């Protein structure tokens, strides 16, 4: 395989070796996210819905999810002295819904546990659960950021080649 690649590299102005490497990096990243439980098959469903007519669909959903999640986490972080369990539960329900829709498995599971504590009116449990949700969310967001950057670089190659 290597000799063919280096021949192509010498003749092609846009260095397709890098493009291949980018694609490989992206695949490995996404696969690792599935393996580590950050993503579940709902994310695969979203990937399958993306096509030539909606090339930015996955990025759009990821961005909407992150906006939504950060809005909710900001609200939940306020006023930790007195916990309004109903209000907190409503927020966590929303976050559980959007994480389920984007395929954010670990975040979703953390939300389910969080709601248990709300139901039990367990303040310490809720405070801990909030930290767990944040942990999983920020880990995921980090990887989503890398994923979207790789996608953008790959798409930049594709559009260059079309010009």
């Amino acid at each position: 395989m290597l000799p063919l690649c280096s021949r192509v590299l010498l003749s092609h102005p846009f260095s397709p070796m890098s493009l291949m490497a980018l694609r490989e990096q992206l695949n490995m990243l996404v696969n690792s996210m599935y393996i580590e439980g950050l993503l579940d098959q709902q994310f695969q469903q979203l990937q399958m819905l993306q096509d030539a007519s909606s090339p930015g669909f996955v990025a759009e959903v990821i961005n909407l999810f992150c906006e939504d999640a950060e809005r909710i986490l900001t609200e939940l972080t306020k006023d930790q002295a007195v916990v309004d369990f109903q209000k907190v539960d409503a927020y966590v329900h929303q976050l559980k819904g959007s994480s389920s829709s984007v395929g954010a498995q670990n975040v979703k599971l953390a939300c389910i546990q969080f709601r248990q504590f709300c139901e039990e009116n367990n303040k310490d449990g809720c405070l801990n659960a909030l930290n767990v949700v944040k942990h999983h969310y920020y880990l995921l967001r980090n990887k989503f950021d890398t994923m979207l950057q790789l996608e953008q670089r790959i798409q930049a190659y594709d559009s260059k080649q079309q010009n």
Partner: protein
Amino acid sequence: MSSPRGPKACGGGAADRQIHVLAVDDSSVDRAVIARLLRSSKYRVTTVDSGKKALELLGLQEPNVNMIITDYWMPEMTGFELLKIVKESSALREIPVVIMSSENVPNRINRCLEEGAEDFLLKPVRPSDVARLCNRMR
């Protein structure tokens, strides 16, 4: 006056007769997903974020809505309340209404179906769920 409800090809149809679905959900993520799912089946889609906005749109002269698909749990007006209002309206009652929910609560499902909901979908909604709705469009 009503056209026969025989079997027909699924999907949104040609542009001039495109089936128009009104999707109601307070979650921006879910609106994006349901819109994409419906558009990939060639339906024309309008999304709104509340029951109130849905009713405003439906109150227009020619809403031309062939189906309403709504989330159950929304602040201010639930999908169930929206369903009731639609079914109690002589102008709107023929429009099939589908409810979506992230929670599998049998009582809730039964209440919605009894109130006249066409179907009840569990979130996250799949392409196979959308395919199933095809025959229910007005």
